[in-house]
């Protein structure tokens, strides 16, 4: 099942980082998608002190933040995880948020996917992780879970 975390304000890099670390730290979380207005690419002429931080670190892995976080889709398997996620959100989103249950990440290949990837065998986990106009490698980061 998927859930959508809908903060009442759009999030900056710091809050996104903390929130994602909290969510990704949960065992039951399989996939996470960040959705929001796209940020312009880094401008080399711009004073870096005015730019928002582009790189966040989630579970020790660097991720380039390309959108301003507006919504977070999370795929989980147990309904009880929602309460854990709610706890994480309570901590980092003091301005309020909604959690909605639904289907937010698609699980079937679309016609666009077929045109894009052909008959190549795409693992189930990669389907629905990006929109059809973007390259998968540009948008996707795989975070390995510590298997100790």
């Amino acid at each position, binding site marked *: 099942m998927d859930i959508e975390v809908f903060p009442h304000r759009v999030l900056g890099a710091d809050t996104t980082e903390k929130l994602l670390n909290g969510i990704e730290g949960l065992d039951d979380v399989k996939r996470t998608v960040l959705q929001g207005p796209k940020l312009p690419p880094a401008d080399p002429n711009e004073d870096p002190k*005015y730019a928002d931080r582009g790189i966040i670190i989630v579970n020790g892995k660097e991720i380039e933040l390309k959108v*301003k976080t507006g919504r977070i889709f999370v795929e989980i398997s147990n309904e009880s995880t929602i309460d854990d996620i709610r706890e994480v959100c309570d901590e980092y989103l003091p301005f309020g948020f909604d959690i909605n249950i639904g289907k937010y990440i698609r699980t079937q290949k679309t016609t666009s996917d077929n045109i894009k990837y052909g008959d190549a065998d795409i693992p189930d986990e990669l389907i629905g992780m990006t929109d059809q106009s973007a390259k998968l490698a540009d948008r996707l980061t795989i975070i390995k879970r510590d298997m100790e």
Partner: protein
Amino acid sequence: MAQYYPGTSQIAQNRRNFSDPEYDLEKLREISDEGVVKVLGHRAPGEEYKSVHPPLDEMDEPDDIIRELVEPIDGAKAGDRVRYIQFVDSMYFAPAQPYLRSRSYLNRFRGVDAGTLSGRQIIEARERDLERISKELLETEYFDPARSGIRGKSVHGHSLRLDENGVMFDMLRRQLLNKETGKIEMVKDQIGKELDEPVVLGEPLDEETLMKKTTIYRVDGEAYKDDKDAVEILHRIHVSRSEGGFCPE
């Protein structure tokens, strides 16, 4: 007495205040002339005004009764270029909004051209008049540093949720909250060109003040449907327009 806007709510009253040229808008902050010039980005501070025609006094104009009746504004007298300032107002209780801006600009200022779109509003005038008008717009109730944006381009953001620090989304990040001073600083001019020194726009208004000053009806503020008087007038206009346009003969 001119009737500017119907309604008994605070929002209706605010709309009337803005539209009434006799009403003195409250001055909320101080921005230097140089700051305004920098924010506009049309000329460097201290630079001469460029002109598109010689001063009117030196021009040999044809005799015309209208020319005698209408006193030209300063910029027109000097032959300045026509320049602009454009504002974006967040739907989250910004003090002004595009339609109201146009209505009130045309009531308050002479020699201007106002253009209204759903999310942004532009005003064009001769350069030196524009600077005077911009200063007034930025210093008075028209403007809140967090919920209103000065954006010549890349205006997207008025209908988005606010940033987590309460500032309206801006992909070019022109207005930033300085966490140390608690004031909003304009670090780029209105088209996104970086400034040498940030222009301080002052502290954002708090939620309570914004709710009192806003001219936007919202269900979580004052709902339009609760303003019976305004709704009644709207119905009347709707019915007369429909019947007048129907032409039942």
